[in-house]
């Protein structure tokens, strides 16, 4: 048994990236963030494996949020594409990417969204796609609007698209948000600023003329980087039979 377990991958911690558990500037955090320190969980089999969800979770039009209804949604058509990779730059192929977002007016199609902006009958705001063999994903959607919330006086969320990705291990599971370059609302947004300063830039997409489709849609590029793993002692050896 020890010979087997010594070959397991180990995913490097990335505390310099993520927000802290406790972040009271985000008001809803106060009654929900655990107070006890987290208990260190060494990575074993259940942590370095994870669900490898497939095409069965993705429908034909799921990657194109502009064709899911009788007519096209209102708003600026955009193409959002990029690569899902690990912390060593290795692409993660065939992995599920899920997104959800507000419509062009900043309103979600959710019963509890009270923002008095119109719903768009032609926009659900939900997408799914698999990365291809090179780890690339591509969505067609409309630019989401900013919207007010009640966190503090005159609080507004910068426009964003929610992303959910799995990677290949339980350790890599990530739910995050993609933002748009140059948004003047960043400075007052506690959610954006909850990420460590050096890491905030990693949540902001680049405008990209190459993926912009002439006469049709603006292109944004955004790569998603999940935790990297240290090579196992045996990874580069031909003979895995013994120590």
């Amino acid at each position, binding site marked *: 048994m020890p010979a*087997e377990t010594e070959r397991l991958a180990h995913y490097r911690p990335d505390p310099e990236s993520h927000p802290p558990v406790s972040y009271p500037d*985000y008001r809803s955090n106060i009654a929900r963030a655990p*107070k006890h320190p987290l208990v260190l969980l060494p990575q074993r089999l*259940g942590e370095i494996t994870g*669900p490898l969800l497939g095409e069965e979770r993705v429908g034909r039009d799921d990657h194109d949020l502009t064709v899911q209804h009788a007519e096209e949604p209102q708003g600026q058509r955009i193409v959002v594409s990029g690569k899902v990779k690990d912390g060593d730059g290795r692409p993660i192929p065939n992995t599920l990417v899920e997104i959800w977002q507000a419509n062009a007016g900043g309103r979600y199609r959710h019963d509890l969204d009270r923002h008095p902006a119109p719903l768009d009958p032609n926009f659900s*705001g939900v997408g799914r796609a698999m990365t291809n063999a090179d780890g690339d994903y591509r969505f067609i959607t409309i630019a989401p609007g900013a919207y007010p919330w009640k966190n503090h006086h005159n609080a507004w969320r910068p426009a964003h698209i929610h992303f959910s990705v799995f990677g290949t291990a*339980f350790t890599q599971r990530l739910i995050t948000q993609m933002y748009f370059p140059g948004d003047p609302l960043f400075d007052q947004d506690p*959610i954006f600023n909850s990420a460590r300063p050096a890491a905030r830039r990693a949540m902001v997409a680049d405008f990209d003329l190459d993926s912009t489709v002439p006469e049709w849609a603006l292109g944004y590029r955004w790569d998603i980087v999940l935790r990297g793993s240290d090579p196992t002692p045996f990874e580069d050896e031909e003979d895995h039979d013994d120590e």
Partner: protein
Amino acid sequence: MSDTQTTPSQTVGPFFAIGLPWEDGHLIVDEDVPEAFDVIGKVLDGAGEPVPDALIEVWQADPDGRFDHPADPRGAVAREGFRGFGRCPTDEGGRFRVRTVKPGPLPAEDGVQAPHLNVSVFCRGMLVRLVTRIYFADEPGNAEDPVLLSIPDPARRRTLIADPAPFGYRFDIHLQGDDETVFFDL
């Protein structure tokens, strides 16, 4: 090998229910698997109020303690009717339900891990995923489990144990408060 900046976590927010729930998401195993049972519980905040906008995800081994995954050194094993993964949003009462079977014990360098479910908790208000585990009160292996043994306070350890119930097992998740669940740094 260059170390790249990983993408920061952000909150799942209040409106994930438009996209993340799947109709069959709570089925870690097929509904009609004979040994299947439900794990039902609530997510509660520091005031004991239900959290109606949380998402629970479960990842677990099969009854033989195997994973259908290439990183399992014993080889990936697919098992009929078994997915190993489930997700369930909480309802207005903070309740969630997943349907599953007991995983087998898991080998580890530091002993045998008792049967358990790996759990991710996402919710409005949390900027990062919270990771916890569900163990089963009727498993003698709990006494030798290296993760449970790493938690010195028995009351804290107890927060990771699901109790038998007519439908299977009950497991509440306390984000905060006197009964705060143990959460892990992975």
